[in-house]
């Protein structure tokens, strides 16, 4: 049984430090924003309806030969970050340097040339291959694009690449179309296409998540072998902490476009700090039948990235949130609605008529009005909500409740948007982990 290939681990995996003289890829304060498609008129005039900050101020340095994992749920920006390393998602702000060269300063042409050195493996191998190209054409096209005119020369290289990824005997595959191959075989083809130009960095975007359980380990093993043989540096994008734990030297946990925790794999797993990391760890299904189901999962889902929560974007789902995490009107709505799922229909109707529609709470604000029938009844209502879930962290965020108009205004404490700070062996963005010196 092979064990974790220690030989391929770089000496130091500390973030920011000990990377040696120069990181191979250096991402500084990177932001990638996308415009949202608006209504018909807005579309006609090319106006955007809003902006999604897919990546929002990320720093990341890759040491040559290391495997960095980007882990997060959908909408965390991990894929966008990966794509931006190839210049596929243009940076709105910040810089990406490959061997000291800023991608943004390159012309379109030299950016395309540069992609020879940074390559990508995609999540769905069936979609990543042109259905109209044979395997030979698909893999060889990377060479053709970079100016190798001779078909015979290309063929030699293609055969070599296919053998490297284990697709042998090669003759069986050259003339086949993607639809004739199994999922694992297709992913091998995609990897062959990625390595044929001799890259030094490989961005692997969920390379095994679409594959069958029994094949995943094979592809992961192949990637480890290639890394050793070709001296590759990996960015491994995944939502699966288990494979990241096995595969990565360093892990960055991402949430809504930010890195919330980053550090060496052992440290992250042995001592997770950010509540989100902890939650992810708890949530991994484990085949050990002795394990108990986690009882304290974060509520809700990843919020709409076009209107992220104020303060720390994880606070609405966080069980450890404090008063300064950025509580706001939408959180009040969530807790009231959760309260209503526990009421009988009569009670619900009665309370509903008391406070009315909650749609006005949808706009993120630091205070929220509630109630239609006077301050007294609104306060009583809030008390009822509170008495039912007195430990809900939101109540920590309530600064004061004052009478206003036909109801009350709930004011929340000013929130803090935590930055990444060093804490022990890792960096973490959470108010629970202030600067090391203070801790």
């Amino acid at each position: 049984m092979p064990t974790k290939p220690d030989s391929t681990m770089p000496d130091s995996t500390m973030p920011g430090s000990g990377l040696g003289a120069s990181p191979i890829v250096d991402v500084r304060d990177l932001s990638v924003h996308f415009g949202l498609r608006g209504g018909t008129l807005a579309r006609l005039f090319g106006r955007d309806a809003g902006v999604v900050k897919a990546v929002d101020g990320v720093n990341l340095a890759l040491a040559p030969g290391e495997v960095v994992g980007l882990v997060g749920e959908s909408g965390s920006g991990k894929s966008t970050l990966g794509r931006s390393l190839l210049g596929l998602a243009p940076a709105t702000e910040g810089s990406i340097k490959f061997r000291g060269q800023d991608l943004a300063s390159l012309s379109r042409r030299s950016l395309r040339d540069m992609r020879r050195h940074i390559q990508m493996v995609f999540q769905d191998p069936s979609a990543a291959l042109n259905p109209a190209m044979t395997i030979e054409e698909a893999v060889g096209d990377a060479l053709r694009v970079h100016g190798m005119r001779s078909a015979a020369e290309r063929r030699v290289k293609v055969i070599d690449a296919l053998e490297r990824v284990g697709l042998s005997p090669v003759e069986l595959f050259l003339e086949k179309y993607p639809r004739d191959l199994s999922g694992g075989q297709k992913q091998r083809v995609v990897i062959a296409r990625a390595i044929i130009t001799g890259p030094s960095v490989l961005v692997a975007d969920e390379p095994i998540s679409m594959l069958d359980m029994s094949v995943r380990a094979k592809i992961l093993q192949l990637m480890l072998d290639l890394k050793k043989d070709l001296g590759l540096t990996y960015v491994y994008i995944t939502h699966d902490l288990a494979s990241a734990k096995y595969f990565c030297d360093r892990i960055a946990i991402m949430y809504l476009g930010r890195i919330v925790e980053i550090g060496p794999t052992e440290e992250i797993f042995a001592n997770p700090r950010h509540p989100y990391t902890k939650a992810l760890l708890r949530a991994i299904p484990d085949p050990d039948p002795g394990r108990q189901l986690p009882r304290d999962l974060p509520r809700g889902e990843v919020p709409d990235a076009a209107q992220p929560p104020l303060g720390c974007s994880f606070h609405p789902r966080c069980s450890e949130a404090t008063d300064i995490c950025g509580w706001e009107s939408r959180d009040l709505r969530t807790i009231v609605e959760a309260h209503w799922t526990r009421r009988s229909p009569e009670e619900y109707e009665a309370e509903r008529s008391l406070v009315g529609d909650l749609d006005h709470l949808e706009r993120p604000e630091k205070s929220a009005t509630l109630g239609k029938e006077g301050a007294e009844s609104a306060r009583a209502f809030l008390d009822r909500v509170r008495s039912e879930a007195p430990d809900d962290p939101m109540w920590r965020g309530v600064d004061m409740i004052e009478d206003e108009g036909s109801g009350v205004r709930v004011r929340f404490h000013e929130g803090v948007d935590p930055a990444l700070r060093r804490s022990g062996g890792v960096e973490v963005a959470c108010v629970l982990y202030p600067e090391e010196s203070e801790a």
Partner: protein
Amino acid sequence: MTGSRSGSLPRYILQRVLLVIPMIWVILTLVFIVLRVAPGDPVSAALGGKLNDEALDQRRTALGFNDPLIQQYWDYLSSVVRLDFGTTFSDNQKVLEVVRDNGGATLSLTLAAFVIALLLGIPLGLVAGRYRDTVPDVVIRVFGILTYAAPIFFVGFLLQAYVAKPLGLPTSGAAGVETVFYMERDGLNKTHVLLFDVFLSGNSYYIEDVLKHLLLPALTLGLLICGVFIRLVRVNILQTMQSDYVEAAEARGISTSKVTRRHAFRNALVPVITVIGLQFALLLGGAVLTESTFNWPGLGQRLVEYINDRDYVAVQGIVTVFAIAVVLISLLVDIVNALIDPRVRY
């Protein structure tokens, strides 16, 4: 929990109404380029051999055709805004009056044909889609293809040759001479749409006369569109019948008839509505041929006459009116669509 993301209907409608303006502008510009810029000079086209060069030039200056194109373009747009579509060349009539006098006949014809097409096409399409690859499906599809494949004037020819005579149906005009005469004399043509006027008059003789005249032309035109509807409805039914939510409804034990009605048919008709709007355009085109075939006194008939006279101004005016009608219909369709499909509004 994400909040309510439902787009507001009024907002959507407002946006959609505003979008009409650029669409009409684009169409007007196209009409202008095609009919005013491309052919060169309409005056010599229409009056070529009839007048000498000097007289032609006078006419040109009088009508503004010697102005710079941009000026003409501006004049055209601004007069359309004032609902002035120009004066015809050959018989010196206001285009708007031509439209008013003949548009009614076209409207009656297209509406009647549309109703026939809907009543025939949608149920047949539903049956064909629901019972795919069965005998009814094959028969209905062949019927649909044949009605589509038969040109209007050929169907008209067959109807005139084999149906009109035995049944004693008229094959020319929108009404008998007496009907037209007496309706006009008694001031009963209030809406300028004969079909509506006779019903408003309540006189059964007039009504029968008008309906008799209407039957064959409307059937001819209706059959053409009917084939399109059958094909369209059928394809959409096939797609919705395979959809995941139909299977999910079956898994909840909803009865087959209810699943078909509430889930398959309803959802299949949404895209159909959009295309029905486009079919109205097809109908307007088909009306030209139907009117020629049955000597129907409609706008299409007049358009062909003006074309034969090479009367560019009249053609431009009538085409502009048609274009605006089409844009307004597509607006109506989109609004109906938004009322039915909540996803559209967003």
